[in-house]
């Protein structure tokens, strides 16, 4: 999240699209309600289904799943056509004036794709800027040049007129215009609009571009960096933000440092490849510090046991061009390429797209370790529906672990807020905190390597692991404070360091001293930091995440003494864009930062140089400004509407290119497997005529591994359902509450029908198209089963749930940039149980 939860209270217009916070982020409505009550804020909700959030909205507009870019592209056109953008902001703080390579072709002139498409990959040579002899980007601040970003943006979205958009999205034109008008009203300096999204935007083949489209809108309206503005990614799990920050994903090291690839042979080559440069003279280009962060991270892994270069050599590398995301992992597992697998705090047998493939894949392993609170569909996959235990060789080990309230540590939530949590109770039985389990495994594996050797032995034996000691009980106990201190970082030697921003002034540090902030990190190996963005979280003032101060001098709800946010306790990032060139807030009634004449007051300033310095505020971008034109993505510098891979329409009304051309299809020879089948790709498939989307309910969490075992929660939401319109139910002769089967080419699930006016058929270019929706929290293990199916140690739920995983239906197709599966728009059939 660019801003934070409390900040919703500062908004004038709140757009809920791609999310359902009333159900899934209930506390967010405390702040949304406050904005409505105290500011008279307007709440808009765009969703295929009339949700609990829609029930609270002033305006609700339906749209067909997978058509968000068309909807928002139309809003861009509306803003530009009606001159509703914040002109000064756009001029100063975005790349609107940059001149683009005249050879760039936009989809409107190029059969629906950008120039440079070679197979399913873009050659981005034409997605570049015009530069002068000095390498500086050419600009036209008057926005008149036909090749300037502003004019290209206007041209690109001129095709997104409300009539076409309405035909694509199925949104009535009057509703479309009502939403456009209300949201575009925040383009004034004294108005703020925020957008709230979650997996409703990410889980598409155009997921990243969905969010990009909103970023463009927020930049045009001057809503980035201001109080009540921003793009709010509401995380789907309490520590998703933290785990991403700390390198959970394959393509980044902690702190968003791009993972090295095999072709980058030395640390120097790696640093050069990952460190951007710029010729823009006032741009700070913060990522120029990359070598300091990579060196400090390598030190946190190996300390001084090896040199920096050796540490780099010991770190795993990606094969060039290879993808190691979820879909690929389970595809490779299905093809027998893995020996063993740790499912740690996860339940892929229910959470993985195309769960049938995932469940089959796990049968190809020699061993699997399931670390979880309860047995789940993953640990027991071998005895799940349709499985013959006699034929499965995989040996499964269950390691019971502690729940979040049974151990100490921190979580980082959507607000980038790192909050320390204390242990409330001891874990039951033999369950251990994850850190203890990891320590046990680490020391055992290390011992085995030392005894028997093995490939890249030193990668393990040289690692530093100062997180806890073996105690009298023979176990290693992990100390979360030791980890938090390592994440913050410390000096590895006595060192005199020049004070950042103060030439000639020095400060001395002793070996072991914490690094105060990332501005002090070094590229010579004298500092260690496990995650540079968290530097400052556990420094000389101790554990900042444990703070519980409730002062708020800002008056806008920053609460800077409550826990700690990365980076440097900044509560609203990009806040350098909330002020004009003189440091005066665009909206003096809602200042995030302000220049008093000799200093900044308010939030920790972001990118704001002293007024007059000419420094553009988006310092994480090499050229210092925000990108309306974004050549960094795999599938286009501007978002373009493409249909979901599985869709109910014959053609894309926007262009001859039906689907995102840069996606990786698993049904192509040599890519996926025999199990990767789709429907309705080339043309509509009458066997699967309805769109389906997945979502959550308030009462359950993720695949329900924790919540399905809670009798009170299971009592309220006891099982799988499918929501559908009255019209569809009539067509299929389905009554409310009846059992039905939802099928896709990949699987089927049984569900209770909820026949509801909250789903309505869409009119898509004159055709009636139905959409249905299903929750993804359920799984077979908490279903009632015959007594004979319970083993001696099996836990039996007090309240059974009904139904198996929604992901048995979802396709193995991912976003062109992230490979997140398209679980929010795929095709199914719905039939009454017992009717073929």
């Amino acid at each position, binding site marked *: 999240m660019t801003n934070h939860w409390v900040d919703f209270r500062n908004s004038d217009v709140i757009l809920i699209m791609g999310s359902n916070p*009333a159900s899934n982020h209930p506390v967010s409505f*405390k702040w949304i309600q406050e904005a409505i009550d105290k500011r008279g804020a307007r709440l808009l909700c765009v969703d295929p289904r*009339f949700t609990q959030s829609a029930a609270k909205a002033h305006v609700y507009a339906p749209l067909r799943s997978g058509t968000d870019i068309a909807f928002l592209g139309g809003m861009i056109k509306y803003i530009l056509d009606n001159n509703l953008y914040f002109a000064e902001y756009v001029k100063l703080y975005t790349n609107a004036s940059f001149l683009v390579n005249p050879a760039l072709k936009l989809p409107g002139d190029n059969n629906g794709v950008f120039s440079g498409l070679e197979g399913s990959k873009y050659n981005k040579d034409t997605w570049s800027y015009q530069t002068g002899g000095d390498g500086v980007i050419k600009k036209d601040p008057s926005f008149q040049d036909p090749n300037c970003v502003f004019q290209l943006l206007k041209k690109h979205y001129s095709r997104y007129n409300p009539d076409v958009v309405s035909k694509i999205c199925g949104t009535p034109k009057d509703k479309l215009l009502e939403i456009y008008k209300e949201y575009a009203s925040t383009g004034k300096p004294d108005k703020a609009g925020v957008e709230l999204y979650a997996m409703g935007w990410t889980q598409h083949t155009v997921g990243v571009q969905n969010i990009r489209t909103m970023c463009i809108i927020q930049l045009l309206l001057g809503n980035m960096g201001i109080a009540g503005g921003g793009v709010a990614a509401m995380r789907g799990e309490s520590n998703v933000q933290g785990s991403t920050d700390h390198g959970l994903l394959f393509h980044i090291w902690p702190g968003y440092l791009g993972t090295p690839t095999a072709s980058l042979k030395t640390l120097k080559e790696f640093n050069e490849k990952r460190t951007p440069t710029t010729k823009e003279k006032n741009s700070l280009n913060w990522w120029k510090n990359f070598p300091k962060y990579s060196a400090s991270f390598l030190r946190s892994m190996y300390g001084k046991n090896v040199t920096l270069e050796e540490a780099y050599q010991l770190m795993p590398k990606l094969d060039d061009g290879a993808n190691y995301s979820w879909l690929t992992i389970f595809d490779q597992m299905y093809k027998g390429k893995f020996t063993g697998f740790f499912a740690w705090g996860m339940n892929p047998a229910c959470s993985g797209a195309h769960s049938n493939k995932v469940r089959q894949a796990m049968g190809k392993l020699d061993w699997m370790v399931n670390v979880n609170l309860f047995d789940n569909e993953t640990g027991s996959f071998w005895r799940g529906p349709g499985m013959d235990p006699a034929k499965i060789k995989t040996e499964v080990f269950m390691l019971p672990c502690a729940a979040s309230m049974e151990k100490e540590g921190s979580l980082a939530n959507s607000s980038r807020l790192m909050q320390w949590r204390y242990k409330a109770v001891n874990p039951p039985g033999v369950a251990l905190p994850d850190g203890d389990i990891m320590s046990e495994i680490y020391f055992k594996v290390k011992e085995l390597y030392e005894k028997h050797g093995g490939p890249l032995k030193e990668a393990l034996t040289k690692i530093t692991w100062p997180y806890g000691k073996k105690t009298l009980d023979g176990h290693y106990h992990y100390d979360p404070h030791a980890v938090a201190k390592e994440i913050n970082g410390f000096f590895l030697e006595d060192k005199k360091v020049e004070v950042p921003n103060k030439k000639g002034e020095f400060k001395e540090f002793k070996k072991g001293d914490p690094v105060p902030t990332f501005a002090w990190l070094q590229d010579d190996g004298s500092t260690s930091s496990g995650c540079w963005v968290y530097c400052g979280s556990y420094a000389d003032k101790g554990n900042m995440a444990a703070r519980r101060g409730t002062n708020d001098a800002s008056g806008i709800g920053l609460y800077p003494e409550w826990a700690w946010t990365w980076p440097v306790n900044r509560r609203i990032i990009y806040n350098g864009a909330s002020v004009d060139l003189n440091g005066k807030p665009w909206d003096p009634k809602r200042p995030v930062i302000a220049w008093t004449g000799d200093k900044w007051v308010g939030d920790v300033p972001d990118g704001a140089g002293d007024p007059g310095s000419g420094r553009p505020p988006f310092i994480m971008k090499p050229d210092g400004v925000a990108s309306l034109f974004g050549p960094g993505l795999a599938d286009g510098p501007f978002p373009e509407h493409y249909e979901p891979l599985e869709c109910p329409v014959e053609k894309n009304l926007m262009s001859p290119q039906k689907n995102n051309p840069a996606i990786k299809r698993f049904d192509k020879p040599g890519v996926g497997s025999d199990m990767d089948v789709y429907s309705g790709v080339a043309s509509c498939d009458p066997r699967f005529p309805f769109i389906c989307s997945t979502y959550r309910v308030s009462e359950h969490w993720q695949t329900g591994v924790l919540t399905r075992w809670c009798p009170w929660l299971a*009592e*309220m939401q006891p099982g799988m359902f499918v929501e559908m319109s009255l019209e569809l139910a009539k067509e299929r002769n389905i009554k409310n509450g009846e059992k039905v089967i939802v099928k896709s080419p990949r699987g089927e699930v049984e569900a209770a029908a909820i026949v509801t*006016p909250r789903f309505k058929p869409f009119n898509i270019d004159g055709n009636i198209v139905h959409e249905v929706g299903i929750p993804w929290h359920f799984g077979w293990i908490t279903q009632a089963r015959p007594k004979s199916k319970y083993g001696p140690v099996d836990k039996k739920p007090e309240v059974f749930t009904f139904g198996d995983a929604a992901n048995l239906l979802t396709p193995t197709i991912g976003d062109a940039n992230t490979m997140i599966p398209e679980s929010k728009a795929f095709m199914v059939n719905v039939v009454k149980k017992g009717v073929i």
Partner: protein
Amino acid sequence: MSEKIKLFDISKCTGCRGCQLACKQWNQLEAKQTRHTGTYQNPPDLQANTYLLMRFQEMADAKGGVKWFFRHQACMHCTDAACVKVCPSGALYYTTFKTVGLNPSKCIACKECIAACPFDIPRYDDKTDKIYKCDMCESRLSNNLGPACAKACPTGALIWGDKDTLLKLAYKRAKELGDGAYVYGDKYVDGTHLVYVLQEKASVYAALPKSPSVPLSIVLWKDVLKPLSLLAAGGVLAGSFLHYIIHGPKTPDDDSVTKTEGGE
């Protein structure tokens, strides 16, 4: 101590059911097997193990749109409580907070309260042979805490506080909302201790009486005849006769037995 009430503002409720869960947790009410019947509302009705139920209700509006209401249903805690009037054993009583407490150990399962309650709140449990209902978390109130449900509410839809303050707030809120929004509860049964701000006519909401009152029969019986009967020698007979006239002959009361959902 000033009189307190619980105020439920339907316009602020998102249906997250934190209140329903908090009620179960504080009162340690056993969960029962339910099944999906085509609505999020579950259990389907108030039960002996469910003192508080969030009612989910959908309605198509005149403009082709749809509305979805989430109503907090629990004991209204009448000031003039029919259940207390009819309870012969003292199991139901007025607390020092003027709410209606329940002491199940005194309950003799006569079920008079079920017939008397204008809001259809008390539920009979055949396993324990007792009546159950919300007691506004008397155990919390007597420790200076508000009821668990209000504590759990994230949006401010459900709040606990001084009667005067909250009633003022309720009227102000109804006015702000406009469009026919109104306060429900303070004008009935000498004022309820669960007061609503509602946006639709009472008749629109499922299981909500339009103008609740203590049944006339009970007023006659308990407030008029009972005192008289103490004076009259034939009082007992007259009472029995009246009871027969009003309630008719004793019939099996299967309807009032909570059916627990099951069968999965």
